[in-house]
């Protein structure tokens, strides 16, 4: 897939687990796993906003375009 999600690195930088993020953002772990493994077909702006808010980062820090 051209767009990949690199949540691992940001989570590692912030010292946060996926479970903790899921609790803070209000997205299920199952859905976060879909996102993390780049299986997701779309991401809502509200989800992206919540993740960026909790991880204190920019969308560009977790979303990458690979040719």
């Amino acid at each position, binding site marked *: 897939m051209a767009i990949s999600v690199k949540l691992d690195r940001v989570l590692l930088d912030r010292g946060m687990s996926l479970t903790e993020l899921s609790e803070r953002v209000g*997205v299920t772990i199952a*859905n*976060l796993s*879909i*996102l993390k493994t780049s*299986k*997701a*077909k*779309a*991401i*809502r702006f509200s*989800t992206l906003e919540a993740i960026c808010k909790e991880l204190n980062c920019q969308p560009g820090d977790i979303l990458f375009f690979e040719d």
Partner: protein
Amino acid sequence: MTQAKRKSVASTLTSLLSISRWVLWYVIVTLPLTALNAPFFPITFGGDFADPDAVWPTLFLSPFLEQNGTRPALYLETLIGMITAGLGLFVIHHFLRILRNVQSGSAFARENGVRLRRIGFAVAGVQLGIYGLWFAALLADSFLGIDFKGLLVALSPAPWIGVFGAFALSTIFLEGAEIKEEQDLTV
């Protein structure tokens, strides 16, 4: 329609289809016995064709066959009847699977679309097959002298409406499955 109502409609349909399945099995078994005039089997197609006054318990073709009936036509019609009943069983099997999926909450699954498409192909195929048999009978009649007089083949648009309906629904279900998958994978 609420989900509970939908499920009750599905379970009613399931019961009706299960009953139809038994009826079709009965038809498949009894048709050849009837056509061959099996001695142990009490139902016949109008009994002795030579004797129009003979009263026997009859199935649905007897009035026509009593007038024009000949054995080859009867056998061919029995074959067509069995093929149609077999098709009915195939269609019922697929509908039951679709209903099971609906009851388990996954109506818009790719599998349902594929099943509907199979139903469409099966009905179309059998209809074409029946027309083919009918044409073969005409040829046999004129070239080989086998008397198919009295052959009754239904030329009804109903199966074709069913075929188009099945294909249209199949497209809708496949599209729906795609939309649902996209929605499921939206985070």
